[in-house]
């Protein structure tokens, strides 16, 4: 994962944090519990798309809600809480990803995707293919990689992805198209290289 992959907060959110919240209604603990119930699965998937490790992803989600608890007085002023939570999760996951060697996370995830009923040699080959795909995803340019990984989350619409990435919807669609095209070309090229080497 590129080290400069951290997203920046939108300017209107930054402005909102500076507003006085004296008259704002303070969310209660019940509200935060409702947030946990409503968004924990989504945030887990967002973190998992970056980290590909369940334990690390759960830690990230817990950290997100701890931050929500710290800033609970400012929650009523946030326009789109769902996107805001996704953004916090995304940034925390990227921060955590920087401290971990990518291979340590991708290989167990790839092994978990391979069926256990197939022979060992086929399982090894499939694991290598998935690992290579994940590695090529990580090698994509940052905007394309972010768009592709966010698109893998069903709950996020193109509009929300565009808001998170600070781009227009058409730009997000173009990023997705370019990401898939580039990824397909690279995987195809790698496969041809491997076949040529083995031959």
């Amino acid at each position, binding site marked *: 994962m590129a080290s400069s992959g951290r997203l920046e907060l939108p300017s209107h959110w930054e402005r909102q944090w500076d507003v006085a919240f004296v008259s704002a209604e303070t969310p209660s603990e019940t509200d935060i519990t409702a947030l946990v119930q409503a968004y924990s699965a989504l945030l887990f998937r967002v973190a998992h798309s970056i980290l590909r490790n369940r334990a690390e992803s759960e830690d990230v*989600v817990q950290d997100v809600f701890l931050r929500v608890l710290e800033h609970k007085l400012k929650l009523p002023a946030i326009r789109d809480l769902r996107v805001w939570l996704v953004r916090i999760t995304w940034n925390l996951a990227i921060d955590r990803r920087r401290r971990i*060697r990518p291979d340590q996370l991708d290989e167990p995830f790839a092994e978990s995707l391979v069926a256990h009923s197939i022979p060992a040699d086929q399982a090894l080959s499939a694991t290598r293919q998935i690992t290579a795909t994940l590695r090529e995803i990580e090698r994509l340019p940052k905007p394309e990689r972010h768009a592709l990984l966010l698109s893998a989350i069903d709950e996020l619409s193109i509009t929300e992805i565009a808001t998170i990435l600070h781009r227009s919807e058409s730009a997000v669609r173009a990023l997705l198209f370019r990401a898939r095209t580039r990824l397909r070309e690279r995987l195809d090229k790698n496969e041809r290289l491997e076949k040529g080497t083995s031959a």
Partner: protein
Amino acid sequence: MNHQPANSYPPSHPDARIDKVLDALRTTEPPTGLEQRIAARLAQAAEARALSTSGFATTPRHFTTAQPGAASLFAVILNAVKDPRILLAPGTLYIAAGTVLTVVIAITIVHHHTSTNTAQTASDTGAPSRVPHLRDGIIVAKVGTTPSGATVISSLEGAARQPRQAAPGATSTLAAETISHPLPPSAQDQDLDEIARAETLAPSRSAPPMPLTAQEKLIQSATRPGQPIQLAELDIARAPILRAAAEARQTASLEHYVRSLLAPFAVADALQPTTDSQPQEVPTPAPPTSNPTN
């Protein structure tokens, strides 16, 4: 977004591989109990935050005005005596207060000077207040009262409770008698429950280092300890340099060893230059003349 996996591709096709990975990311289910763990951690964080920021204030409205660093240690100790729950606060000041309080009470009990004061403190606290302070899985100290109303100090490590023994030769004071008495089984079970509950609610730590991969284990098993040169020689580019350096190091080591062996002789020669040590010149006989008649 709704993505339909492309099933028309063969499994080895790049698009099929991409779709497989994205589908796996899309269909990842959160682990069971995630919400409960998050809620427990939030509750723990909120409680710790309330205790650390409000000190002894009963209402959490003093969050913004309370300055825990400004409170004096003496006040903290006094309040800890009143409400031992404050020892659960994560601030170091409260930990220090708990430690000081424990030491003070221990000294008091051991020297049997203030048995009446101890009984008075126990009567002030009223209900049993057994509050373990959990930090890094080790319960540092416990201050509480038995049902009989006497103060008990014990030091715990993990789940094993080790009551402090009274000083040898102690007379029959109230504190010493109370310490020597074991707690009833119900109190011990309650302690274990509290420990287990605290362990459950403890914040999660960072993951331990990942295990070695298969390749790393293979390399580890293939290498022989103590012979790094052989391992380094596997690197073709660096092998000649490393071999030359190793030979030079061996030669230098051998020379140093020989020099250290010959050093006493050299010193002896320098201190006592005798004729024995000098090579004697043997007079060479004159070469016989080949022709004496000449």
